[in-house]
């Protein structure tokens, strides 16, 4: 049986080599328009000369995020898919338990109109919504930056404050504690209610837990993902198909076959 296995192994190699040769032939036929795939050069953590990011072991950083330069990410924080944290001109520090949701951009200012160069400081348990843009600002603990909000240079969002979705917080605006600001340009809307305050802290904890699930899934290597694919194929069931299947029962008054 050993020789049979060896024979199959060799035949497998012949077929693979043939396939690769055909691939090269096809590339040549495509001429100058052909595309050869390269390894992904995306660097999740990248240093700019001597400024290297420091990410806590317990934090979740999505592989498609880009963290470059002088960035410090605290314990239990999560940086979701597609985020860009560019700490090249100055430093960014993200506290513990903070979540920076998908496609956000945290950038620092090297020069701005007022001449002040500001690092971006994000406190603990902050939730920064999807597609937010934070540029050279300070966000204190337990704040909530709504989805697609833009917070510009020198802005200071205090503890438990909330920036509504789609808001544009202009330069050097100070958002006092416990207030909701929104609109373009951002102005005071209302005060944060008690339940919203509790909601923020529970939200941060929820996202932290969710991040661990994503972290576990993203760090799987080829064997584990293949195994999982196999399991899915075996247990594949479509909810709609199954529900229709369950409906195929004989009505009550039809006599069953004897």
């Amino acid at each position, binding site marked *: 049986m050993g020789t049979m296995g060896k024979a199959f192994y060799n035949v497998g190699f012949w077929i693979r080599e043939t396939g*690769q040769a055909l*691939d090269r032939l096809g590339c040549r036929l495509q001429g100058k328009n052909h*595309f*050869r*795939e*390269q*390894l*992904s050069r*995306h*660097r*999740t*953590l*990248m240093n700019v000369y001597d400024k290297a990011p420091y*990410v806590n*072991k317990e934090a979740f*950083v*999505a*592989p*498609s995020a880009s963290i470059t330069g002088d960035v410090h990410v605290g314990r239990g924080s999560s940086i*979701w*898919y*597609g985020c860009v944290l560019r700490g090249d001109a100055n430093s960014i520090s993200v506290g513990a338990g903070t979540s920076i*949701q*998908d*496609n956000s951009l945290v950038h620092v200012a090297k020069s701005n109109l007022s001449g002040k160069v500001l690092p971006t400081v994000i406190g603990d348990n902050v939730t920064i919504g*999807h*597609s937010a843009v934070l540029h050279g600002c300070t966000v204190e603990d337990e704040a909530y930056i709504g*989805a*697609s909000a833009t917070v510009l240079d020198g802005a200071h969002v205090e503890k438990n404050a909330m920036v509504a*979705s*789609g808001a544009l917080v202009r330069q050097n605006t100070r958002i006092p504690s416990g207030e909701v600001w929104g*609109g*373009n340009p951002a102005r005071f809307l209302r005060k944060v209610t008690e339940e919203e305050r509790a909601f923020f802290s529970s939200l941060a904890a*929820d996202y932290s837990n*969710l991040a661990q*699930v*994503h972290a576990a*899934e*993203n*760090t799987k290597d080829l064997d584990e*993902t293949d195994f*999982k694919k196999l399991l*899915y194929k075996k*247990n594949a069931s479509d909810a709609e198909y199954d529900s229709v299947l369950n409906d195929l029962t004989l009505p009550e008054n039809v006599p069953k076959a004897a």
Partner: protein
Amino acid sequence: MATSLARISRRGIAYALSSNLIRRSFAAEAVVLKTTEVPKPISEVTPSPDRVKWDYRGQRQIIPLGQWLPKVAVDAYVAPNVVLAGQVTVWDGSSVWNGAVLRGDLNKITLGFCSNVQERCVVHAAWSSPTGLPAETLIDRYVTVGAYSLLRSCTIEPECIIGQHSILMEGSLVETRSILEAGSVLPPGRRIPSGELWGGNPARFIRTLTNEETLEIPKLAVAINHLSGDYFSEYLPYSTVYLEVEKFKKSLGIAV
């Protein structure tokens, strides 16, 4: 003469036999030696202790979470930049363009027939919706979602256009054949009636759509479907990156 011949032949045979035997025994020893001694790689590769700085695999496109596996139809175009996580279903003829993130980890996301989610959108589903209805994000057929939008637990009925950089918050409903202008923000629970054009932050009524405009909506979706067909045909069914990986590993001396 015969005896000497016999002697020579005997000696020759003996010699051949013995040398063969010796050679075979050496060969056996050599084989034993080879199997016991594993060839050492030229350079020792140690994984980084705390965090992987660079993974040649990049970001996986489809991320199953728990028992949920994102499902992509066979003729749907999903760009390689896209991240589909959790309960996401991309139906036939639809397309998800570069950089979009469809995160169905808390609730279901469905992208209907011939719809498209354009570049850098974020589609997320919250755990619960303020309206009390199921908080899944449902994008029905022939919907065009413009670039850089944010859709959160909303329902978009058939044949709509959502403008670029729009934000649809939890529980919002965009009824069939309506258009949302670029940059519009729908607060939670907002409903856009059928056949109207809304826009602004927060979204306000602008005007009703004429019949011709309503007929253009599915045409736009179909046009983007054709465009996505071109992109789809550019990609081989399976990536050939593994060849580069093998070359790479060989140059580093890691066993392939």
